[in-house]
């Protein structure tokens, strides 16, 4: 046993040194190896790689795939359009990676894209993954646009290459809160969250806005993202008689919360953020779901420009789920900036991206100094007949009823 082990170990050591010895030649060929990754451009073709990252496995894989589809559609359209940079024909390729919605995997995958020398990145999906990954892109100087990370912190890091085309939590929170305040005129509001970065973040913004509107907010109650029994918390709230309840969290916990609230006889209006702004609420809460209010960052997918909707449906034979119009726009923004700079070199086209003005599937896009979208839209929904229906669109503090908003979008892109 001892002998066998020693032999294997030595063999393994030798095998490893074998690899090690090959290293010096490989080392001197460093440029060569990068060439294998990006084959030398044929005289008239330039390959531009765009990375897309989102969770392709795990609980929200369907959203990750949706995001990827949006980016893929943009890339395919750009290839069909035959774009030229610096006199050369450009072939865009999309490198899609899976970050499993895990921050550790996120940085590894980000490094993988940097290794592959991508020219720009669209992603990631979750804020918790996007923030650490953005540091990797920042170090490599690669522009990154997220179509779905809503945590304000992402763009507060001072990274010049980090952008997002979706509204921040501190835009969405105030939107739903001010809609609630204006339309339902509550005197006392209870705010609950699920103690996750997302839920607490949006609940904090709602609370801030309500307090600003001189509405009394009860001390925060919390559950977790796995809580199924909300009765203790709700019973306590019932004693304080709130006129409205806001919950920052996902539908899996928001549904039971709403159901149990009605069971306990709470008559208040229930409002939610985008995590619980789905048709699933009807399944989980039953009749209790009717009339709830909720918000989504950005415009509803069905309100994206018609061109995008048709093209998406045609290509993937399904409807966009949530953020694909945003990743579609993010990808187009990268391409547009490259066109303007007439280069795919990140350092060269980054300044163009910062000052871009572009009309995409989700409306006109411009970035502010931090890389956030100026005047991002937030949509308010209600549950009607078991379906989430848009009520109004809030933009720059102004509320437009949905019907009117659709008319303005009709002339989009």
């Amino acid at each position, binding site marked *: *046993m*001892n*002998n066998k*082990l*020693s032999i294997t*170990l*030595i063999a393994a*050591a*030798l095998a*490893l*040194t074998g*690899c*090690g010895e*090959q*290293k010096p030649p*490989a*080392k001197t060929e*460093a440029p060569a*190896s990068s060439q294998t990754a990006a084959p030398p451009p044929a005289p008239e073709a330039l390959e531009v790689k765009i990375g897309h990252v989102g969770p*392709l*496995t*795990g609980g929200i*894989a369907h959203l990750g795939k949706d995001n990827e589809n949006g980016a893929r559609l943009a890339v395919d359209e750009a290839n069909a359009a035959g774009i030229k940079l610096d006199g050369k024909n450009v072939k865009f390729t999309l490198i899609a990676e*899976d970050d*499993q919605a895990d*921050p*550790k*995997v996120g*940085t*590894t*995958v980000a*490094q*993988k894209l*940097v*290794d*592959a020398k991508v020219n720009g990145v669209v992603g990631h999906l979750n804020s*918790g993954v996007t*923030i*650490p990954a953005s*540091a990797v892109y920042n*170090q490599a100087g690669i522009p990154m646009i997220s179509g779905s990370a809503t*945590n304000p*912190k992402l763009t507060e*890091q001072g990274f010049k290459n980090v952008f997002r085309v979706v509204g921040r939590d501190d835009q969405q929170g105030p939107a739903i809160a001010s809609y609630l305040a204006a339309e339902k005129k509550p005197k006392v509001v209870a705010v609950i969250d699920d*103690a*996750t*970065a997302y*839920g*607490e*973040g949006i609940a904090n913004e709602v609370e801030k806005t309500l307090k600003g509107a001189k509405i009394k907010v009860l001390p*925060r109650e*919390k559950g977790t993202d796995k809580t199924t029994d909300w009765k203790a918390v709700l019973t306590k709230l019932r004693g304080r008689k709130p006129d409205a309840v806001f919950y920052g969290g996902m539908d899996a916990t928001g549904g039971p919360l709403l159901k149990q609230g009605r069971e306990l006889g709470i008559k208040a209006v229930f409002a939610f953020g985008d995590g619980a702004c789905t048709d699933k609420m009807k399944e989980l809460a039953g009749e209790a779901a009717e009339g709830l209010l909720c918000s989504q960052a950005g415009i509803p997918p069905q309100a994206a420009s018609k061109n995008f909707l048709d093209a998406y449906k045609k290509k993937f034979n399904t409807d966009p789920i949530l953020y694909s119009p945003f990743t579609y726009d993010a990808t187009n923004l990268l391409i547009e900036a490259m066109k303007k700079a007439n280069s795919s070199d990140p350092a060269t086209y980054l300044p163009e991206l910062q000052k871009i003005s572009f009309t995409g599937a989700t409306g006109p896009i411009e970035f502010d100094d931090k890389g956030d979208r100026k005047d991002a839209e937030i949509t308010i929904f209600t549950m009607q007949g078991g379906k989430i229906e848009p009520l109004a669109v809030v933009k720059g503090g102004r509320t437009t009823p949905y019907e009117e908003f659709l008319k303005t979008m009709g002339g989009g892109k």
Partner: protein
Amino acid sequence: MKQYFNAKGKPWLVWIGFALVGVVLAVLPFALAQVGTSWVRITNYAILYVLLALGLNIVVGFAGLLDLGYIAFYAVGAYTYALLASPHLNIHLPFWVILPIGAGIAALFGALLGAPTLKLRGDYLAIVTLGFGEIVRIFLNNLSQPVNLTNGPQGIARIDPFQLNGFSFGTYEKFIGLEFSGPIKYYYLLLVVALAIILVNVRLQNSRIGRAWEAIREDEIAARSMGINTRNLKLLAFAMGASFGGVAGGMFSAIQGFISPESFVLVESIMVVSMVVLGGMGNIAGVVLGALLLSFVPEILRWTVEPAQRALFGRMLVDPEVIRMLLFGLALVLIMLFRPAGLLPSAVRRRELAERAP
């Protein structure tokens, strides 16, 4: 290490062996960087797990106390570093000050957990430690109110990388013609720390303390009657194991640059336990092997399972992550059933088994 090389009377063979391993470890990151810097990062995370597994091995392997909340100490170390080296509290201490502090605080937590639970039997202890791990995470998640200490679920961002006299571990540099990216620098640092911890472990194992732990593990009552102060020694095991976790946590914090309570969930604790159990409780080489194996498994699966499924069925049927967890579960069960001492059993256990089966 010696027992693995049959080098009786040939000390030079041992030295050559060490030299070979040393060369391999030294050039490894550059070889990996040829494939992709991402592999250096993966290796770095693997070394972090090696540190964790070695720390847990002191508690589980040496002293025989099953700890299912070990990740709490990792969290304590990570948060200590993050709080003392980030704009969150606006404190920026150098890493060589914080790491010992983090190790100390983690050790304190270890003793804090150990003290009331010393009387408990093995399986009760396991459950209490599990509860402890969850409590620490819940507190980290909620200590943003009424006074914002940990920033709650939002996590702490922009954590400083390690810096020494203007030399930052986070940045890219060219040095005597070699390209040192951030991950490569961290690789060497992690390697040094890992080797130091391995050395401490080896020395510990064969020391008075190590033997006393072994005695406690085998038969606590007998150990006490032999004059071993079981209480102090068990506390020491908890504190030492925890301090290693604290160091690993601090390094994780710096490498990652952003931490939140999400990174310190129960599954992580179980993962580290699996590494120790799979490799061989109480055997340092085994534990290192277990940690490396289990940390590379996800990457291997990513490269094999996905393409294989796509080729066979045209789409993904089972996530690699699910397969990974199933493999973990199976490994735990099968190892316990068929090879309870692990892949590389410790010498003592092997001796015991040999005695039983003549």
